């Protein structure tokens, strides 16, 4: 009975902690409501795709850095001013470079980034294919090997 209660308490505590962390994520950025739901969707998609420069492993949507808040306000302001997604992205890349994009454009400096995984996959497939082929072991014995096998068997018989 006691153990049951303790377990229940532990579960409650865990649930509470999970809830807290969920709240913390929600509270990280300021809420922003647009009159048009299309604008709202564009805003949320854009800040999800843009990278925070201060905490570089977070998007603008996740980061509670001061600069991220400024850039979110900038994105929102430009959406309300009627600028297109491409114009907003151009505005930010002109100042911060491709670095702000979680999906950098395909160009010579990013070839390795985009094609690297594919190249590694091809190399891996080649290694697997070659290993599988040599380990298949369907080859017949050579003449010399058959000769050796025969002598071994003959020795066995004569013993």
């Amino acid at each position, binding site marked *: 009975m006691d153990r049951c209660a303790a377990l229940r308490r532990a579960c409650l505590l865990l649930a509470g902690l999970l809830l807290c962390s969920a709240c913390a994520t929600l509270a990280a950025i300021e809420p922003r409501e647009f009159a048009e739901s299309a604008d709202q969707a564009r805003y949320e998609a854009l800040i999800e795709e843009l990278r925070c420069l201060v905490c570089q492993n977070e998007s603008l949507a996740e980061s509670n850095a001061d600069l991220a808040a*400024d850039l979110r306000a900038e994105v929102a302001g430009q959406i309300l001013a009627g600028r297109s997604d491409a114009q907003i992205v151009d505005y930010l890349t*002109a100042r911060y470079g491709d670095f702000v994009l979680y999906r950098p454009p395909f160009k010579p400096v990013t070839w390795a980034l985009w094609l690297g995984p594919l190249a590694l996959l091809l190399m891996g497939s080649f290694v697997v294919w070659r290993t599988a082929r040599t380990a298949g072991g369907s080859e017949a014995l050579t003449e010399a090997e058959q000769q050796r096998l025969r002598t071994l068997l003959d020795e066995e018989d004569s013993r």
Partner: protein
Amino acid sequence: MTRFLLPLVVLAGLVALLAVGLRLDPAHVPSPLIGQPLPDFETGLVQGEGRLDAQTLRARGPLLLNVWASWCAACRDEHPLLMELAPHLPIYGLNWKDEQAAARSWLGRFGDPYRASLHDPGGRIGIDLGVYGVPETFLVDAQGVIRYKHVGPLTGAVLEREILPRWRALTQASAS
């Protein structure tokens, strides 16, 4: 022997790749503004009633533009170096996301190395300059074009290796 050769080559390649990777600074953001003219702005100054616009500042190059704030601890670290530099080359400040009173008292306490400090409380000029952390230092040439940007506090080594050689090249170019 040869069966170890390929894995060894692959391992060596991987080690080389990781060694290079470890030396790179992931926080370094290459600025697309290098080679571009100083972006437009028009703003008040931290000290005094004057105002300054980009056109005027561009004409005053070559110069250093140092982005700072009174709340920035690393700015405090590089400050003595700026004080030392100030008599020798023109340094302008961009007081980024700061309160004027706090900025003024900071300069009063530690000294003012700037010919003028642009006041940018909202961080608008900072965004146009691609500022993402203070301190940052821009080297602007006689044509008002940004030639180099250093992110983080200036140190003697950075000055010696990155800033001063470029500075000398710029001043020689503008003198001839």
